[in-house]
Each structure stands twice: as structure tokens, then as C-alpha cells.
């Protein structure tokens, strides 16, 4: 059941590796959890989970794995623990050293200690409060200086670990949910490509030394331009119709991007359903706001990164047929798909961010077509992070 926690976390997408698991076991071996499942819960979280965004996943897994453990630490649990300790060798991808380490940690000594502390806890739950301050009789005490001496703040002991886990107070921090602006900013911080251009204002030490030597010891200062972000971003956003439910996350994305002062250049435009002859500088999309898409392609070179945001959900005719634009005020002889093709071909990197849940993508015909052109990511923190990676990371 112990191992259920490890694999449960991995199944929930929490990046926990054998290194952290070992740290956790080593902490248990030192008795840091005392005789308390709640402290065991916190200790596990401190060792295994490295971001508050995964606390919720940890809570879910912990509640699932340890539900019912409290109060009934009978033979069954003991047996399961023993089973786990025997099965420890089945852990995947273990090097011999790690295996040896693990065996050292899961030795009889650890097993004995852990069972004793858990056993002790069940006594406590049966009504006694015997472990507190009874240094001499505690399982691995040190002549009375038992680790339980560290308790601070009495109120925590009255709450059970599983209850704490079940409260799921960290649900708000999950990153696979749609995001808030701060999280979005964190995701967008990665949009960086540093280059040295502009005014030389930073002392170049190596060159200074070289030049000074060439100058026979007379100091010659050499300056160079500081490193700056070279990312230029073109944002194309679908507005109206089926996109209306997503106004909130879209405006958050836009706010976060406007705040992202590190970008060398940033231009947002709007479209409806699909990009046709024109895109618009404002979301109301009046004729006065129109900018010919062809102009954009002429003016912005291939170094611009393109992010299209839209649900990619439309009548196939709107994407594939000439005059597909459903807006009666406009006529577009070229089908939308051709414009999308031009964007893909013109720019070096372009991604599509889709606010619809990923589970819906396969049921929308136009989304499937568009996915063949653009890598598509969901409008969540994780999705944005991956999209940024696709824009500036190494090509895969």
C-alpha cells in the first residue's frame, strides 16, 4: 500500500522520482513522522511533492491510499505493509546502487520502527494519548528524548491526516485547470530568447583584459550590449460565437501578455472562426479595424512566433470553401484553410491554443483538420507551458 502512494502520485502526473522516494524512506527511517499519521502525511508531502500545484493530487491519492487505515491498523494493514516491503525490488528502473540503498532502508529495522509507530498510533486513536511525552516507552526513543518532543501547536493533532487530505484545500492550485493571470505570467516567462543587440552598455571583462594587455597595461574598457529577449509574438484570437464562454481566460491571456514587458514586440489581432483576408485590431471587428492578413505576412518576418487562440470549431465549409466567411459583411474568395496554410508556411513557429477541453478535440472535424497544420495546446497553465516550449524549444 505504501507503493500505491508512489504509483498513485505518478498516475496523477506528479513528477515524483526514485530519488525523492528514497529521501522519504530515509526520513521515515529517522523517525521524523513521529507516531502520527498526520505528520506522516506532511512529511510525505514535503519529500515527494515539490509544488503546491500538486498538493491537490497528493491529497486525492493520500486519501485514497490511506482511507480506512486510521483506527484499524490491524493485521491486514501490517500484512500489506510487509508485502510492500518485500515487493520493493519490483520498482522499475533501479540501478544496483539504488537497489542496495533501498534494501538498506527497507531493512527489518525500518519495518519494525514503522509498524511500531503505526501501531502506537492506533492506540492513540482508541482513546489514549499515551505517546505524548512518554519518552521512555516510545518505540525508538533515545533515553527519553523521543522525537515526539518536537510537537508544536496542539490543534493539529486532533485532525486526522485523511481528513486533512480529504479537505483538498489546495484544489485551487491545480495547473490543469484554467488559469489565473499570475500563473499565466509564470507560464509565459519562458518565452525568452536572449540575444545581444542594441546599445553597448555592459562591461565585457574578457575583452577588457585582452585589450588592456594589447595596450601594454594601460586600461582599455570594452563594452558590449546586454542580453535582451528577442522574441516577437503575433497573437491571433478568435472572438464571438462559440468563443463567448471563453472571454475570461482569453482576456487573462491577453493581460498576461501585455504585462510581459520582456517581449521585443507583441501584436494582438482578432478574427472570427477562421483567419480570412483580414484580421482586426479590435474585438468589435469593424471595417475600420481591419488589417489585411497579407500585409501582416509581408510586414512580419518569419522570426515572429505565432499563437492562434480559438476553439477551431466551425462548419467545415467555413474552413474549406471559398466565401466561407459566415460574416455577411465580408466576402472571402480564398478559403480559410489556405490562409492558415500561408501562416504556417510563412512563419517559422506557430501554435494553436484551444480553450475547449482536450477531450472534445477529436469530435470536432475542423479541429482535427487544423491540428494537422498546427500543434494544438489547451488553454491551461500546462498547455501554455507546452505551447511556449513548442515556440522556442528545440524542434522535436
Amino acid at each position, binding site marked *: 500500500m505504501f507503493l500505491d502512494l508512489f504509483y498513485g502520485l505518478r498516475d496523477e502526473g506528479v*513528477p515524483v*522520482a526514485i*530519488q*525523492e522516494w528514497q*529521501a522519504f524512506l*530515509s*526520513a521515515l527511517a*529517522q523517525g*521524523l*513522522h513521529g507516531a502520527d499519521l498526520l*505528520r506522516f502525511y*506532511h*512529511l510525505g*508531502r*514535503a*519529500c515527494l*511533492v*515539490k*509544488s*503546491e500545484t500538486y*498538493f491537490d493530487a497528493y491529497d486525492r491519492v493520500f486519501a485514497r491510499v490511506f482511507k480506512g487505515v486510521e483506527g484499524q491498523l490491524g493485521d491486514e494493514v501490517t500484512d500489506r505493509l510487509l508485502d510492500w516491503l518485500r515487493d520493493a525490488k519490483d520498482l522499475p528502473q533501479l540501478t544496483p546502487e539504488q537497489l542496495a540503498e533501498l534494501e538498506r532502508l527497507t531493512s527489518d529495522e525500518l519495518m519494525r520502527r514503522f509498524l511500531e509507530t503505526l501501531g502506537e498510533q492506533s492506540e492513540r486513536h482508541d482513546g489514549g494519548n499515551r505517546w505524548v511525552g512518554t519518552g521512555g516507552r516510545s518505540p525508538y526513543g*533515545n533515553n527519553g*528524548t523521543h*522525537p515526539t*518532543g*518536537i*510537537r*508544536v*501547536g496542539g*490543534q*493539529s*493533532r486532533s485532525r486526522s491526516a485523511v481528513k486533512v487530505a480529504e479537505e483538498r*484545500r*489546495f484544489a485551487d492550485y491545480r495547473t490543469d485547470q484554467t488559469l489565473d493571470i*499570475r500563473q499565466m505570467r*509564470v507560464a509565459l*516567462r*519562458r518565452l*525568452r530568447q536572449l540575444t545581444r543587440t542594441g546599445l553597448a552598455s555592459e*562591461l565585457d*571583462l574578457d575583452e*577588457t*583584459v585582452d585589450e*588592456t594587455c594589447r595596450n601594454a*597595461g*594601460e*586600461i582599455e574598457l570594452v563594452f558590449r550590449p546586454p542580453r535582451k529577449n528577442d522574441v516577437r509574438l503575433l497573437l491571433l484570437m478568435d472572438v464571438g460565437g462559440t468563443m463567448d464562454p471563453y472571454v475570461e481566460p482569453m482576456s487573462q491571456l491577453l493581460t498576461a501578455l501585455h504585462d510581459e514587458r520582456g517581449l521585443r514586440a507583441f501584436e494582438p489581432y482578432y478574427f472570427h472562426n477562421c483567419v480570412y483576408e483580414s484580421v482586426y485590431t479590435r474585438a468589435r471587428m469593424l471595417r475600420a479595424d481591419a488589417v489585411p492578413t497579407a500585409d501582416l505576412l509581408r510586414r512580419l518576418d518569419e522570426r515572429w512566433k505565432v499563437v492562434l487562440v480559438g476553439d477551431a470549431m466551425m462548419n467545415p465549409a467555413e474552413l474549406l470553401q471559398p466565401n466561407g466567411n459566415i460574416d455577411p459583411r465580408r466576402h472571402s474568395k480564398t478559403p480559410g484553410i489556405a490562409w492558415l496554410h500561408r501562416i504556417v508556411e510563412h512563419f517559422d513557429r506557430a501554435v494553436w491554443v484551444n480553450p475547449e477541453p482536450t477531450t472534445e478535440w477529436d469530435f470536432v472535424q475542423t479541429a482535427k483538420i487544423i491540428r494537422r497544420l498546427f500543434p494544438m495546446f489547451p488553454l491551461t497553465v500546462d498547455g501554455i*507551458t507546452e505551447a511556449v516550449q513548442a515556440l522556442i524549444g528545440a524542434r522535436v
Partner: protein
Amino acid sequence: MTTNGTFHRFQGTPGYIATGPLVDAVNCAIALGRPLLLKGEPGTGKTVLARHVAEGLGMPMLEWHIKSTSKAVEGLYVYDTVQRLNDSRFGTGDVADIRHYIKLGPLGRAFAASERLVLLIDEIDKADLEFPNDLLRELDEMRFTIVETGDEIVAKERPILLVTSNNEKELPDAFLRRCVFHYIEFPDVATMRKIVAVHHPHLEAKLLDQVLIKFYWLREQPELRKKPSTSELVDWISALLRSGISQKQLEEHIPFVGALLKKEQDVDALGRYGTQGGTIPARWADLGPRYNQ
């Protein structure tokens, strides 16, 4: 400080109210010899914790405050080339010995120290994304080599490392794997009472009730962009006490709101309450039960 034979244990100090899980996390990091990564809302006492860990354990403390321009190697040592150039040009100083121009950074000094100490690496997320990765080997092995001289600095005693982050950037996985992590949650009312008691031991209980009701109510208002934090609460209480404001006055409105709200828009938003937007409670005392579970 208690020694139980294996390692030093932190138990909190009179000047810092640490919750059980936080104390456990600190001790876990000490026992495992790993850095403790602290995150949490601004003002929850991440930085202050390090000082109190040092105080509680009776160890000296070093601080390394990270800026956006900080480089990992600067924490180990800096080779002051410009000074050496200058000395050689003007014939001052002992230019022949490069060691005169090697200055150890905070991490380097922590390694070189003869006793165990606490090192705070503050706001590690301010630096470049790769910054934590550049320190992995040094933190694992607790040793580094000064390239210019070939000297190796090996830590005699593994320093206790506390790292704080404000989440401006994500930290690399490899770095995270080596840390023990603790997220400092915003204190609940009961903990907050203890914290306030540390700073204002003679505060009247009734006044404190009033103060906490207003404080937690303010934090709940969605219109506010920046929620007031613990340190602002403590300042606010100082201001209230100095002005000698009566409990009656406090019951009616929120005086010195500038001590709690730091954004002009937030003060404006609160000023508009009642006319548009939110409502100010008619009787503050009625909120008491909600914030006093």
C-alpha cells in the same frame, strides 16, 4: 536547541510561530541534508523563518539575496578582475597573488566556515531560469573548485540551506528533486492570534477580535488586487495602538486603511463600497463567529 544524538532539531522560537508541519519540514531538511524550499503568499514569513531557524539552533546565518542579474558562480566566489587590472596599472596591491582577488560569495563562505551555519538563498526565482541548475553539483557534493587557483573548497559541515521562492518562475525539476518542499499557508485565525501575540503581547483581546474580523474580511473581498498580509496586519496594529484609537472607533470603520491596502485602486475600490460594488457589513461584530471558528 535539542540534540538527540543524530542531528539538531528546530523547535520554533518565541519570536516565530511555526506550525507543526513547517517545523517537521525544517527538521526533515536538516536530517536529510537537503535544501528546504519555501513558497507561500508574500508576507507569510518565508525569509524571517531562516533567521529564526538560525536563532533556534544557535548557529550563525548567511544571506544570499538573489536578483535578476545574479549568477550561480557569484554565490561561490567572484574573481575581481577589474581591481587586479587597476592594481597592476597603478602598482598598488599584490598583483602576483591571484588569491587576493578571489572573494568568496555567501555559498562559498558557508562551505568554508569552520562551523555549521544556516544559509538563506532568498527569492531564487528572481534569477535566470537556469540559475538553480548551475548549483546542483555544488549543493550535492558541498564542494567546489576555484578555477583560477585550482583550490578546492570543501564544506566541513553541511550548511542548513533554506531557499525561498515567490513563484515568479518555475524551478527546474532536477533542482526540485533535491529539495524538501514546504508551502506556507496563510495562517488561520487561531495561528494569527498567536502571531499577533508575539508582536503585540499587551493587545486587548476585544480589540484583537475587531482587528482580525476586519483583516480577514478585507482578505475575502474579491475587488482587492493585493490582499493584506501578516506583516501588514502587524504594522496596522502598531498604528492603531500608537494613535490610541478606541475600540468604539474601530468598530465603526477601518482606520489607517493605508497600512493594509498598498494599491491606490484598492483604497478607491473600498471607498466606493456601498455606492457600487461590494457592501460593508452593517455590524462588524456579526461577522465574528465566521472568523473565529
